[in-house]
């Protein structure tokens, strides 16, 4: 029980920190930290959505950044065409991601293991090249978004603090949803399939159907992150879909603890903070971050959450 309490305490501290961060930023006049953490929260949301399919369903999707792009382009393209309302942009971003996930999932789930990894990667790269070819929407150079999503005065995305809290609320909402899903009938089936697909088929569960639904839920959540990310950077380009982005998301999930509820959030915070801090010290920051991550993955089985659990026991 004690092991639970250590990771719980650290998680609670982190969440409290995220809630109080704008206050700190306001008091110290440090605007940069607010901007940085807005990005961290958005990518934590993306990592949490990836964790649903990768950690809980056991399907190594290596194309998750595609949803960031699809969500982002939905916002950017609509803005370009004069549709500035967030009430339209966000649902479209989420729906488009869901439809993409449905098609890609239906095809990819015919394969397993390394083939699944490769095919999801291939589809994401396809999405990347399609976006590069969208001449009307900036092509390779990307698309600048001149006005952020407009929520008719309900919330102002141009206001840093309000935008920060919108992102945080989305993250909390998604975490709540994932928590409910993981413990639901559906969640148990999906996790059972991760554990032993043959056994689940034998007791009467058609595997693919459940995995596909999970794939779509995960995709729509990440599409939401994409819509937020585009608003955060006022810009969307094919680069958000590049495979290294998908890799970053996977690293966040593994670093934080695959198949744990808050692991991916923890992983995103640690990964992006390290990236930020190390890049201030040296331009060869990746040279330090890489081996560091390798060590954590090699020796800290179960990621940060696993290490916290062991720290509590030991």
């Amino acid at each position, binding site marked *: 029980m004690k092991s639970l309490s250590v990771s719980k305490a650290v998680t609670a501290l982190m969440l409290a920190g995220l809630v109080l961060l704008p206050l700190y930023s306001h008091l110290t006049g440090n605007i940069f930290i607010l901007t940085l953490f807005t990005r961290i929260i958005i990518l934590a949301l993306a990592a949490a959505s990836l964790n649903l399919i990768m950690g809980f369903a056991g399907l190594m999707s290596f194309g998750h950044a595609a949803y960031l792009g699809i969500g982002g382009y939905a916002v950017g393209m609509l803005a370009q065409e004069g549709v500035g309302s967030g009430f339209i942009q966000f649902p479209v971003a989420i729906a488009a991601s869901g439809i993409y996930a449905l098609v890609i999932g239906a095809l990819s789930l015919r394969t397993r293991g390394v083939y699944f990894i490769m095919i999801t990667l291939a589809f994401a790269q396809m999405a990347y090249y399609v976006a590069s070819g969208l001449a009307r929407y900036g092509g390779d150079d990307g698309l600048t978004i001149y006005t952020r999503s407009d929520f008719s005065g309900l919330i102002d995305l141009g206001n840093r603090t309000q935008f920060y809290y919108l992102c945080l609320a989305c993250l909390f909402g998604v975490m709540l949803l994932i928590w*409910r*899903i993981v*413990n*639901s*009938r*559906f*969640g*148990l*089936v999906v*996790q*059972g399939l991760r*554990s*032993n697909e*043959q*056994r*689940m*088929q*034998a*007791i*009467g*569960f*058609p595997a693919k159907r*459940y995995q596909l*639904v999970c794939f779509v839920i995960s995709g729509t959540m990440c599409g939401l992150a994409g819509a937020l990310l585009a608003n955060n950077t006022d810009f969307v380009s094919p680069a958000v879909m590049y495979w290294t982005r998908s890799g970053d998301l996977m690293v966040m999930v593994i670093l934080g603890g695959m198949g744990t509820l808050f692991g991916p959030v923890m992983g995103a915070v640690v990964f992006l903070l390290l990236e930020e801090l190390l890049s201030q010290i040296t331009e060869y920051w990746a040279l330090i971050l890489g081996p560091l991550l390798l060590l954590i993955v090699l020796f800290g089985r179960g990621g940060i959450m696993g290490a916290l659990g062991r720290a509590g026991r030991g």
Partner: protein
Amino acid sequence: MAEPLLRVEKLVRRFGGIVATDNVSLDVASGELHAIIGPNGAGKTTLISQLTGHLEPHSGSVSLAGRDITYLPAYRRCALGLARSFQITSLLLDFTAADNVALAAQAHAGTSFRFFANARKEKGLRDAAQAALDRVGLGHRADIVVSRLSHGERRELELAVALASKPKLLLLDEPMAGLGVTESQRMVKLLQELRKEVSIVLVEHDMPAVFALADRITVLVYGRVIASGDPAAIRANEDVKRAYLGDQHVVTHHG
């Protein structure tokens, strides 16, 4: 005579040049415990796999309670009342014993596309799981993660999982495999109880167990049925004796 619960007709399955299931026909009546025996490599597991839907036959048919299920996927057969245990235990190792059984109950209790309510708090599922665990004598181990159960306990859990789906027909693929003497005896006792409630097809190497339990025995050799009948007839059958030359004493002296 009433429609048999399971009817297998002229089933053929080849692997390359080898005919692993060669024109096999057999009937299992409702309430019967039907054992399938045969020396190693006789095609018992191949046959079972075709009954459960893990392998498709090249020709012939399988029907359950009059319904053709030859090409139905495994999960659909399960819904029709066919449950199986695996020769090599196949369970959800990182789930508790109760979770394993509750999932089997859940598969037969309405839709699993429910995303919000906590499934571990559904009383109906938990009670069904507990009942099945009690049935096989694992009630006190309900909250133990499967990876920490002994081999014998896992074999029993396999049975509980199969029972939780309230099957009409239970396919047991060597439930005694790897069990010690006392564990085997417990399993035989358990099967003697279960057979009163459900029809069973039993594939087993343990001859004393087979002769103690079976109403009828089908003997497979090289994929072919060489004999089928009650234990006394099988024991007296010359072909069977010949097929089991090395194990002849087992067939004639036990039971």
